[in-house]
């Protein structure tokens, strides 16, 4: 029986000629990740292990990004715990404030993960690296800690759902709209325990930043991982960012899928997920006009260069509506610097937005833009659960950078076409 792309990567890392869905395996890991929230729990757990040293100091990444720069004393203690562990164990990929960025934008940018590799991270959005044709999945702190020490993790080999993407998305339609559309279609548990494998000639029409956004939100459909085939764009990205050797895996032609969906990208419209689940999607056309209080443009889903360029293209020469707080968060220092060099930061500030240093901050209701009772935000982040960005009676509407920027200008949920764009 043929294997899916994910199954092939897992088989190779388990030293097996083939694997099948449901099989329990132990796989070698190429990268193990934690942040300032999950890291301290992992560090505390691994202190109980007999083996004390990490399996490979070059294959562990520790990124204080959630409540960093330290938002309060307790967060400062957590960041300190991670920093000291990294120092003690000589971990090369520890990123201090100043080098740090939002982990899932930072690690690919630093070239720490490439096609054909395996990665676990104590953060659910670790699935982002599937955009590069790697197997990567989120785990908890104990799994991460044990992976960091042993270099291995156990997996139940997932079955897969195939998403055949065709056509080219319209202007102002991005990877975010693609993944919101898919989650709206299959639901927040539509891919539970499974891989989401993206394929089809439409993939070529998606930029790497689009693919990162799509793979990033595979977890919002319950998936174990989301994965893209490796093409010219992937190779160009990896060659620009990494010196690591990559391996290209392709699904077998006779691979078995639990379900197959074909999505014509040219038919998609700017899409928004209503509170309080990412599956509550509507097109902006159906749902526009809801008044808002805040806009957040950033996060591991949409804080990349192309996201900022899109938002700036909408905000250029325009003013943010009275009373709307607009927070732009470049995901990494390199992205921040590039945004300055391209004049995007000036565009944001002239429009009336603020620009923050990289942090996960408001996405998970940490800091840098918490909502009060009754307030609404349009956000390019990935979750709109009850209380996610602040008060339990606040609301988060998930959307693309284009929709978020247009909404900032009008003060209600809008798309760029409403601004004559």
């Amino acid at each position, binding site marked *: 029986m043929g294997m899916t792309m994910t199954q092939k990567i897992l088989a190779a890392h388990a030293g097996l000629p083939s694997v099948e869905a449901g099989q329990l395996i132990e796989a070698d890991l190429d990268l193990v990740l934690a942040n300032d929230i999950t890291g301290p729990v992992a560090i505390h757990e691994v202190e109980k*292990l007999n083996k004390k040293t990490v399996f490979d100091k070059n294959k562990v990444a520790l990124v204080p990004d*959630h409540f960093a720069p330290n938002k309060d004393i307790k967060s400062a203690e957590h960041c300190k715990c991670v920093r000291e562990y990294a120092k003690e164990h000589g971990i090369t990929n520890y990123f201090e404030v100043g080098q740090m960025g939002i982990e899932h934008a930072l690690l690919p940018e630093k070239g720490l993960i490439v096609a054909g590799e395996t990665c676990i991270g104590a953060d659910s959005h670790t699935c982002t690296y599937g955009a590069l044709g790697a197997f990567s999945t989120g*785990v908890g702190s104990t799994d991460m800690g044990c992976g960091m020490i042993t270099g291995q993790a156990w997996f139940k080999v997932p079955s897969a759902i195939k998403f055949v993407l065709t056509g080219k998305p319209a202007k102002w339609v991005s990877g975010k709209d693609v993944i919101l559309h898919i989650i709206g279609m299959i639901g927040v548990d539509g891919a539970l325990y499974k891989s989401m494998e993206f394929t089809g000639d439409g993939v070529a029409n998606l930029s790497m930043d689009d693919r990162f956004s799509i793979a990033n939100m595979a977890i919002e459909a319950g998936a174990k991982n989301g994965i893209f085939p490796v093409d010219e764009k992937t190779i160009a990205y990896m060659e620009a960012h990494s010196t690591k050797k990559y391996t290209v895996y392709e699904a077998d032609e006779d691979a078995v899928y639990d379900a197959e969906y074909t999505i014509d990208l040219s038919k998609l419209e700017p899409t928004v997920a209503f509170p309080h689940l990412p599956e509550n999607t509507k097109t902006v056309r159906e749902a526009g006009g809801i008044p808002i209080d805040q806009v957040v443009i950033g996060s591991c889903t949409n804080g990349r260069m192309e996201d900022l360029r899109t938002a700036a293209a909408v905000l250029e020469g325009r003013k943010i509506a009275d009373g709307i707080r607009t927070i732009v968060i470049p995901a990494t220092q390199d992205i921040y610097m590039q945004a300055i060099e391209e004049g995007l930061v000036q565009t944001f500030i002239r429009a009336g937005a603020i620009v923050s240093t990289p942090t996960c901050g408001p996405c*998970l209701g940490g800091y840098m833009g918490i909502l009060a009772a009754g307030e609404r935000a349009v956000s390019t982040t990935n979750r709109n659960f009850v209380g996610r960005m602040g008060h339990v009676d606040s609301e988060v509407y998930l959307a693309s950078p284009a929709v978020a920027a247009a909404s900032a200008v009008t003060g209600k949920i809008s798309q760029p076409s409403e601004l004559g764009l």
Partner: protein
Amino acid sequence: MKACGTVHKYGDNVDTDVIIPARYLNSSDPAELAKSCMEDIDPDFVKRVKKGDIMVANKNFGCGSSREHAPIAIKASGISCVIAETFARIFYRNAINIGLPIIECPEAAKEIEAGDTVEIDFDSGMIYDRTKGTQYKGQAFPPFMQKIIRSEGLINYINENK
């Protein structure tokens, strides 16, 4: 191994942000996390919950973030087992890894109601609703996971096997 207690019942897609809101993640102390467990969907939970009680929910329990703080908070609040129609995959792994027993059983998740007294036999996977007089067969763990559970979590399992 058995558990017996009063049921706290929830619906679909109970996410880790409501199990333990991120604003409390600047702590990793189980007892402190337990004080805020379920706060955003059930503010009285921590006042009502007694040691040994059982949580029952519908589909996709524990969806969202990978925070291990979620099963840690539930366990530290006194809950002895979570029964659900399905669990989100990261929560499922985390619960096993930290030693919070969980059982997938769609029928039990559907029929058991808040306030019922429920008993669970982990060896047989049987769930008994003592209030209703009904019984259900939960999904047993595969042998690989039973080994981790017998070792009382992944840390001990690795110490014993690697």
